[in-house]
């Protein structure tokens, strides 16, 4: 039991230290999501739109940026693991596969949260969004929906990394299945931007929580099969 906890902390610590030293996942994630905001600004002609229209489009743009950036980050991290042959070490470690999944998921979630801390204020500035909203509600939906995306991304990411492929295949496999998470994220954010609270967005926060639980359970059960040589 204590050995497992130590191994869990070791895997988590190694990934986080590597990320802090190199920024190999976070840096492309940030750049990519920034580019998405920029392209969306041009594509939807946002500066020309009235405030109400901008508020209606912004959640969708934000979640497209978050979803793709999360997958970019996960594909980077998992491919780096593969290139340096870190998987061999991880597979030889005594760490239970479910805990290994949990560690990789937690890294993915932390990366997404750091990204969002930068991205959301940027979106507020670029799209002139209201600031007197329920920030607690926004934090909650970002946590739940990013957690779900990261869980599915971690499981499918292991598959994609096994095949030696990158972001495109990961997006093809994850995003259709993650439709409930995306709808939940966009709908809740729309309600919050209109001045509502988290319960006003029902049932969407519940959908985000339900998918999070489902994807965590599936990931915990199936990660072992995805990793085998």
């Amino acid at each position, binding site marked *: 039991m204590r050995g497992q906890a130590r191994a869990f902390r070791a895997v988590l610590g190694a990934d986080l230290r590597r990320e802090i030293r190199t920024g190999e996942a976070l840096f492309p994630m940030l750049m990519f999501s920034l580019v998405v905001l920029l392209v969306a600004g041009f594509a939807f002609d946002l500066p020309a739109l009235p405030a109400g229209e901008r508020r209606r489009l912004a959640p969708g743009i934000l979640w497209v940026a978050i979803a793709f950036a999360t997958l970019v980050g996960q594909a980077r991290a998992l491919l780096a693991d593969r290139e340096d042959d870190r998987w061999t070490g991880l597979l030889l470690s005594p760490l239970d596969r479910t805990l290994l999944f949990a560690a990789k998921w937690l890294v993915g979630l932390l990366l997404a949260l750091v990204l969002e801390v930068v991205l959301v204020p940027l979106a507020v500035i670029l799209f002139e969004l209201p600031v007197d909203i329920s920030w607690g509600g926004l934090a909650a939906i970002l946590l739940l929906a990013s957690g779900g995306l990261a869980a599915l991304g971690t*499981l499918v990411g292991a598959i994609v990394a096994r095949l030696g492929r990158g972001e495109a295949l990961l997006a093809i496999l994850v995003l259709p299945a993650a439709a409930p998470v995306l709808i939940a994220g966009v709908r809740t954010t729309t309600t919050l931007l209109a001045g509502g609270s988290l319960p006003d967005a029902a049932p969407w926060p519940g959908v985000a929580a339900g998918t999070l639980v489902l994807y965590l359970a599936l990931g915990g059960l199936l990660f072992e099969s995805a990793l085998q040589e």
Partner: protein
Amino acid sequence: MHDDRRGFDWFPLATGFLVATGAALLLWAALVYAPRERTMGDVQRIFYFHVPAATNALLAFLGALVTAVGYLATRKDAWDRVLRATIETGVLWATVVLVTGPIWARAAWGAWWTWEPRLTTSLIAWLVYVGALLVRRIGHDPEQGARLSAILAIVGFADLPIVYKSVDWWRGNHPVVFGRSGGGLAPEMLRAFLLGMLGVTLVHAGLLLFRWRLARVEDAVAAAERAADMEEGLR
């Protein structure tokens, strides 16, 4: 593994017979037997193709779920051969659903696509299971391909109810034919529908058996190639 005895191979003929019988039954029930619907006209006949195709896609994906669990639990190739067949026939029926649905919707609702829960869930299921076919194509190692494909078949199926419910909450307007709020069917239409269901299911059974047999041949070829390679190596 493969039947080596010479002689007449009845298997393709038998499965071909199933497919032909089912197709004939379906076409007769939908195009000849079924009465012309009063308001929608002949377009309504798509119903006899669309609904059985959807049912059979769901059956195939359910079969894929069971065989995927069976494969991951036992790692026996026999499970994977059925898995390969069910995912492919499931994608085929889902394609039929996705083609016939918009044609009907265009005539009935005036729009090709409506983001309605069943249609949207079918599209998402189609994408997920095409993904499950894709990972098998990309990999080099068949065992790895089988494993990854099985994982996606399980994740995809577990995901579908929540996808359906989400899209339903998000948007909704599908005609409910059966059930309390449904319009119900005239007795002749119900008989045509049941015959069409039987027809599509027979076609499905024939295709599934044929594909399964093809998987056996694929595995036999792969085993023979491995054996030949090994012999080469020994020489």
